[in-house]
């Protein structure tokens, strides 16, 4: 049943976007549009006011937030011991994710880390899938941009906007830092990062201290670069996927509109199904990497020692 729904949605989306792609191709000279997704999210309101910060990517982000909150509100409206369908599904997702998080970060840190990691997974997955819906990237609005004469897609995949992926990564970094400091303290964090590891004692400990300090500096640099690596990974996958779909839609150009249309539909179907899978995988990867970062930074040295003994 679910597979049928996904397949039908895919077909509908492919048909819709294929038609839009051909329309775009036919009128390419008319509006000078991009091939595929524009890396730059466009503002939807003219001028320099607060509304000018609402880009088509932010709009999709807000819609995704709205969808998630609408579902959660429906599920949590009347919480019962014997759950209804929506509550049951939410409980299923939460329980599954909580177990995964608990397995990685441990039962002590899991309650603190779970909300962030679950939100990342749910939000990124829904945003990725939303980008595959018909109409996203293919409905244009006019009179946008600073001068009020531009045009831009009304909706664009939110996670194909680097600002969004950087935003999520920065919040992850902040929450990671808060959890780490709460668990280790400032001194503990500094000791954990720059201090000797492996339970070294005596002369060995002091002899290797310079090396551990250098390792700590490298660790700090890697922490600073984490938001960039996380955001680029997600952005790259989604952006590439969207452009791949667009390329497949316009790959065959015979001049015969009917043949071009059919080819654009058929060629996109396997990649569309692949993107559905990639959407959930990227959400999972983003959340899992953050879970691993939290685990690595909150593990005490004595635990390392115990694990090594085991």
């Amino acid at each position, binding site marked *: 049943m679910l597979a049928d729904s996904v397949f039908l949605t895919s077909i509908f989306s492919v048909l819709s976007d294929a038609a839009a792609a051909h329309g775009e191709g036919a009128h390419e000279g008319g509006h000078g549009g991009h091939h595929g997704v*524009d*890396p*730059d*999210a466009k503002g939807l309101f003219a001028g320099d006011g607060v509304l000018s*910060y*609402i*880009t088509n*990517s*932010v709009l999709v*982000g*807000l819609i*995704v*937030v709205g969808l*998630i*909150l609408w579902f*959660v509100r429906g*599920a*949590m409206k009347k*919480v019962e*011991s014997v759950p209804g369908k929506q509550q049951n599904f*939410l*409980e299923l997702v*939460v*329980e599954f994710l*909580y177990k995964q998080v608990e397995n990685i970060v441990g039962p002590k840190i899991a*309650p603190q880390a*779970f*909300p*962030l990691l*679950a*939100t990342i997974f*749910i*939000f990124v997955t829904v945003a990725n899938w939303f980008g595959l819906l018909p109409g996203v990237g293919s409905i244009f609005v006019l009179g946008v941009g600073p001068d009020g004469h531009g045009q831009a897609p009304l909706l664009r995949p*939110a996670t194909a*906007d*680097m*600002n*969004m992926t*950087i*935003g*999520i990564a*920065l*919040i992850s970094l902040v929450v990671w830092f808060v959890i780490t400091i709460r668990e280790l303290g400032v001194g503990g964090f500094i000791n954990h990062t720059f201090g000797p590891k492996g339970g070294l004692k005596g002369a060995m400990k002091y002899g290797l201290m310079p090396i551990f300090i250098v390792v700590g500096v490298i660790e700090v640099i890697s922490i600073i670069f984490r938001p960039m690596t996380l955001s680029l990974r997600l*952005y790259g996958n989604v952006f590439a996927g969207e452009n791949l779909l667009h390329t497949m839609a316009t790959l065959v150009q015979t001049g015969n509109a009917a043949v071009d249309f059919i080819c654009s539909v058929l060629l996109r179907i396997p990649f569309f199904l692949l993107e559905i899978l990639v959407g959930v995988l990227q959400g999972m990867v983003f959340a899992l990497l953050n879970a691993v970062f939290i685990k690595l930074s909150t593990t005490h040295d004595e635990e390392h020692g115990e694990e090594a003994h085991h």
Partner: protein
Amino acid sequence: MLEILHKLGINTPDIIAQMLVFGIVYLILSKYAFGPVTALLEERRRRIAEGEDNLKKIRENLAAAEATAEEVKAKANAEADRMIKEARETAAAAGESERQKAAAEANTIITKAREGSEQERARILGELKRDFGRLVLDATARATGKVLSPEDHARLNTEALSQITNN
């Protein structure tokens, strides 16, 4: 570097806007979804654990109750056997006593019946003698044609009775 950022459309206001979008969903989900749901799941897990503990206790109690019931049943069976045996013995004794009573009573009844029968026989015999004597006197008076005196009466009665007794 700035050119790359520009090409990718990266700018601080957009990043802040996107952080707000994600921050909103993070805070709301943390407070109104994940907290209550995890608490609910924890509560359910606790109830299930309690239920399993209770089930274990109930099973233990049931086993103990079954053992007690078996013990009580065995005792009851033994008691019932004893009572049945006693009842049989009592019934046999009572039956014998009643039988003896009935036999004695039957003997009494038979004896009384015999006595009654004897008395009846004596009474009937007496009446018969009187009737027979009267008949003899009547027959003698008609045959002889004379009026019999009391001495004749006495003599005839004695002779007739002696002949009846002899016969």
